[in-house]
């Protein structure tokens, strides 16, 4: 056997700098601990998928990345989350600014009960990113193009966003998220309410968005994780069990629990 050298597992071909860094992140809901110390780096321009059974902590973790958990009174976060090396839980940090840098797309499309146009410029207006009409027009066009929705809605920008189909509404929400030029986009099961065609549109979009943004996506659909991400993290019972190249996770996971989950032997 001594003449034999085995292939080392393929390591993530990461050449990008770290965008988000989580260090020993623990989350409590009252006395109950939901996350037991998560350590993970998210690299610039990558899509990191987070998978795991319900209640494993993946959504909880996602929501710590732009302090969405702040809205829950009994929720407490320990540890450090750094965005470009900056602690996002620093009390001096402006949370509204943070959420402009780290945008979020939710499970159910949630356009405001306003026109398509108003939906897109809501954030830029709030953050004072533009003042003149032509500037807003430009933001609307660019954002809707980035979200792959422009051609479908350019002639009815002033119709209500809620009148669009589910898939279009979700792309409108993505347009709304990218309108403020965030650096990171968090997606919490963005396709779970969509049909396979609309899902394919969003997945294609995620791939394109990756060129400009860093994306963290929570999904219950493992094939989706396999299709859209470069790296995958598996959560189980509040622990980050394993994170690695998506290819490696889906062909040769190292941890038995990951193996059990992805192959459907979870029980």
């Amino acid at each position, binding site marked *: 056997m001594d003449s034999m050298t085995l292939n080392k597992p393929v390591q993530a071909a990461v050449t990008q700098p770290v965008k988000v860094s989580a260090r020993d992140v623990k989350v409590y809901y009252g006395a109950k601990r939901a996350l037991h110390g998560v350590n993970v780096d998210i690299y610039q321009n990558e899509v990191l998928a987070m998978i795991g059974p319900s209640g494993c902590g993946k959504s909880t973790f996602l929501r710590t990345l732009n302090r969405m958990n702040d809205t829950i009174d009994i929720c407490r976060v320990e540890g450090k989350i750094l965005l470009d090396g900056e602690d996002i839980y620093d009390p001096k940090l402006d949370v509204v600014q943070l959420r402009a840098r780290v945008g979020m797309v939710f499970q159910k499309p949630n356009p405001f009960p306003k026109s398509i146009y108003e939906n897109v410029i809501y954030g830029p207006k709030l953050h004072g990113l533009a003042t003149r009409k032509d500037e807003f027009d430009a933001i609307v066009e660019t954002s809707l193009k980035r979200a792959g929705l422009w051609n479908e809605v350019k002639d009815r920008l002033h119709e209500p966003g809620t009148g669009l189909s589910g898939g279009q509404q979700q792309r409108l929400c993505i347009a709304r998220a990218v309108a403020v030029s965030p650096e990171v986009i968090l997606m919490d099961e963005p396709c779970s309410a969509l049909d396979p065609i609309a899902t394919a549109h969003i997945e294609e979009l995620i791939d394109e968005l990756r060129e400009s943004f860093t994306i963290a996506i929570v999904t219950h659909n493992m094939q989706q994780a396999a299709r859209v991400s470069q790296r995958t993290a598996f959560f189980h019972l509040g622990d980050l069990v394993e994170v690695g190249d998506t290819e490696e996770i889906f062909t040769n996971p190292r941890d038995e629990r990951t193996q059990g989950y992805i192959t459907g*032997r979870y029980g």
Partner: protein
Amino acid sequence: MSPTEHTVKSFEAELQRLSNLIAQMGGVVEAQVEAAVQAVGRRDVEGATKVMQGDVRLDEFERQIEHDAIRMLALRAPVGVDLREVLAALKISADLERTGDYAANIAKRSIALAQLPVMRPAGTIPRMGRLVQEMLKDVLDAYIDRDVEKAVAAWHRDEELDDLYTSLFREVLTYMMEDPRNITPCTHLLFIAKNLERAGDHATNIAETVHFLVRGQPLTAERPKGDKSSFTIIEPVEGEG
């Protein structure tokens, strides 16, 4: 939560069935190789004919395994160890099918050989045959038991087989040079030996597949190439025979 059984029982059953098919097909191939080598040694035309006819079953096995594997890839989208399981079945069935072809070819040539005078180098054929059978048995056992150590041990034995083949090759060339009437039986012997040598290579392929199946990584070590017959030159010696 330990990886035990699939939540979806029918998936578990399909994987088991695939594995059973490989085991059965492997058993048939072992028997085919054994019978073919025996037909050479015993100059048994009837036995050889049976081997040739038996090859059809292996083609059927291969088709069935391919069909099941493609169906599982399409409908179950297997990942992790399940994906490796399906890929391994596809690869191993191809190796077994080819090994069966070699057995059939050996049987065919044994019929021609039975009508020709016995050549001394023929004595090496049963030795090569035994070695191939042992390798086949070991790699198939390794597959069934998911035993990487056993697979790797069998993988190393291919060197022995290559050495036997190289020495037979030299011997056969010498006989042909001695007397042109030896050329016909010797050529058949040479092809039979080559078939066995190739069967050994397919057994090592299976060993590599078992390694991949269990460990998730390819067996990358270079196996020393023992078949030196490609470089062998034998010059007739002046004034002899």
